[in-house]
């Protein structure tokens, strides 16, 4: 899974959120490494919607201070599964790498 998408899903795991808040959250989550410029941000969000991993929440009230027209996105159960699969895959990768690195140290 692409890094941008992974971080967006991860950010949504906390509950529904809107575009520019996701942008800030991803930047924090990635310790400043991943910066989603506006078109990439909304493009990725819509891409995730078309995959069925996110859905729109049209009825949600926008929070105080956000631009009135911002829409809320929400993680679907498919999205959660995909996120969990990806996380397990990364754990597996990391485990294998650790294992090999430790082994190489012994030999």
């Amino acid at each position, binding site marked *: 899974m692409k890094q941008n998408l992974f971080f967006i899903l991860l950010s949504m795991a906390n509950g529904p959120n809107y575009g520019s808040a996701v942008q800030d959250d991803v930047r924090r989550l990635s310790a400043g490494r991943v910066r989603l*410029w506006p078109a990439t941000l909304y*493009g990725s969000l*819509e891409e995730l919607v078309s995959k069925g991993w996110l859905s729109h929440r049209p009825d949600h009230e926008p929070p105080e201070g956000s631009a009135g027209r911002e829409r809320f996105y929400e993680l679907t159960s498919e999205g959660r599964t995909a996120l969990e699969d990806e996380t397990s895959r990364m754990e597996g990768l990391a485990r294998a790498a650790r294992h090999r690195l430790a082994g190489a140290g012994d030999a």
Partner: protein
Amino acid sequence: MRLAPYVFNLLVRSAVATLPDALRKRAGGEITALTREQVRRARRQRGILIAVAVATRCLADTVTRGLYERLRARLAASVTPPSNPEPMQTLLSDIRHAVRSLAKTPRFTAAVILILSLGIGANTAIFSVVRGVMLRPLPFPDAERFVHIAADYGGGPQISMPYYRIDHLRRSTRSFSALASYRGHSGRVEAEGRFEGVTGLRADPGFLDAVGSPLALGRWFTPDESAPDGPAAVVLAHDTWQLRFAGRRDVLGSTFDVSDRSYTVVGVLPASFSFPQVSSDIDYIVALALRPDPGDEGRNYPAIGRLADGATEEAARADLARAWSAFVAEHADLVSDPERGFTLSTFKEMHVQGLGRILWIMMGAVATVLLIACANVASLLMARANRRQREVALRAALGATRGRIVQYVMTESVLLAIVSAAAGLLVARWGVQGLLGMAPVALPRAESIGVDGAVLAFTAGWALLTGVLFGSTAALPVLRGRLEGMLREGTRGSGGGTRFRQSLILVQSALSVVLLVGAGLLLGTLWNLRGVDSGFDPRNVVAATVPVLPPGYTDPAAATELAARVTDGLVARPEVQGVAAVSNLPLERGLNIPLTISGRPDAWEGAVEWRAVTPGYFEMLEIGVLQGRTFGAADVAGGAHVVVVNESFAAHYFPDGSPLGQGVEVGKWKGEYLAPSLAVGPLRIVGVVADVRDRTLREEARRTVYVPLEQVPAALAGFPRFLAKGRRSAETGQALRDELQNADPRIAALDIRPLDDVVAASLGVERFNATLLAAFAALALVLTAFGIYGVIAYAVSQRTREIGIRLALGAARGRVIRGVVLDGMRPVLLGLIGGTLASMWLSRLVQDLVWGVAPNDPRTLLLVSAVLVSVSILATWLPARAVTRVDPVSALSAE
């Protein structure tokens, strides 16, 4: 400026418009809103440069996202699976292919690289210097809290004011955590028997807090040391510490001798210390030991301060207004009528004011050149893309995926952009060196100015974006899925883009006109100033300045005696025909001094130009004597005090009668002398001489008094400069050098220049501006000509067959050529009109830089039009002629 947000919004809207419909409908509004918000936030929090960078990133992101989305949609819809077993392999083969195909069209390749590297390089060089000088973070902590306070005496803010007022501000304001003043200081130090000049500052107790600098070693001056006649203490600059004390930690307590005075070293400044208010780097700081004295109104000092924590600029301004009212109430006698109080400006405002205008104009010029370069490259790439569409269509028909085709097409553009950026880096290096070498004044911290990496990345990024965008037009029909059409249309490619390329020519011509007009105005200014009648004749005159005197001349009499030895020695030499010693060279800033006309207590002024000269001066420079006489052998120390005034002075104070025999009291101001030693009584006017532009060539002569050098009061005596006239400048210069060495062999450094050079150097700023802008305008013109040539050459190559037929049917060649040229000139002429209107609108920017030319000078506009039109005709005529030379038979079989 209203224009910037407008252009920005337009760009955002066009970028969003490139997104595929689906995404644009769902999120276009949000993308636009968030982009604006981010740029606005960056502008507010981190300044205009960062905001421009953020805007660029957002726009680039939008455009690439659009490409990506389209690609994704195509790939998803494509029947061919996107199989690409070895991506590295294909990339390498694409690069190989791109290199080969670029090598096959060396003229195209060279043109693109030349244009782009000049654009990138020139832009980077100028911008690096601009950033280095004025936009680099200031060397102070919290520089935005560092402020200047000026006094407004009715004619706008004056940088300095009497020390008593600064002291008043210190006592009666609360908005500043520190308020301080300083003055320049200079002297000589001895190193291995030679005497070198050093420059430093005199600074009062609050200075270090106002600047906000820590010390590397030791301490600041104690109240004792800051008091008049206190112990002499010095704080060394880091370089001085390293150079003269070998960086020893135990330097504190040792002595540092400046001009016969011994100072105890009490502290050392950090290497990072810099004080850009003075033009050169300083070597040391000594105490500005002043006693605030209401009577001391003649000497002015700058006031600097640091806003206290929590104090805003507005609060500080209100505070200053209160302090002013209090001052007026307390000291009504010191306040003259038009005086308006104190003004506050941040350091940055001050700093940018001095350098600002011309650097911004240069940046505008350079951005214009970059735009023209990018337009050219876009045009060249589009023409090439059109030619390649058939090849691309063939590849697609043979089963290449769209991703492969885009990669294949873009490899070439990216390759070109990278090579150009590398070449641009070289150009930028030379450019920075050249600029620093050409600069008319020593730029502060010049040694630390290099090619700015961020700037290079920025300009190269634009070049890359241009390359990618326009290079990829070859793949557009593929992405649109219009393969069959393309294969049918054959080499003719799609006719699309011709109109776009013509509008590029229009824009380029307009931009060139603007630059050419600017350059024309500045060159006209330079021309006018060189032709201005200065009133003196510098030919065959050589000037000598002694920057540092050896010890032993603190007594003015000793210095006067040394000067007399030098002039006597020169007079005795056969190769020297005229000699004069002067307090200040022509076009060198002289002294300003108050003056009162004897017997007319109301006829006084605060600052007349004061120059001390020896008798030969007026004759040597051929300054006309209008009335009376100039100085003679009798006007020596102890003789009757005499003065010669200039025409303006005579006309102002004696409009109806002759000034001869009248008295002036030099140094007397509001009934009192500035210093006791000036109180020599009235000086009798013995002559009136013609006006001379001896401050700057731009200004009319000011009211000036000349006094005999030998009668100069001790308070005003400095070591004079020397002028000598002889048939050959080299010989005269050598004579000056010899006589100064004879008079005191310890004199080491000398500055000897023909007076012609002094006059030329006084136009250094004007020459720098004009040369630079002319260089940009020439570059713009050449690039535009390139562009026109490229478009016409391409257009006629598309019409080879048609032209061949017409020629074969007996059309006259001249007619055909004329047709092509007229066609090609249409966008140029439209651009010319647009550019002329734009430069008339922009001319107010250069209003105060030009001299003797109206900003809308019709001659300049006409000349520029003529130049542009003739160059463009040449650029259209050459390819038109080439195509009519082609043999009709081969033209017909050109397919």
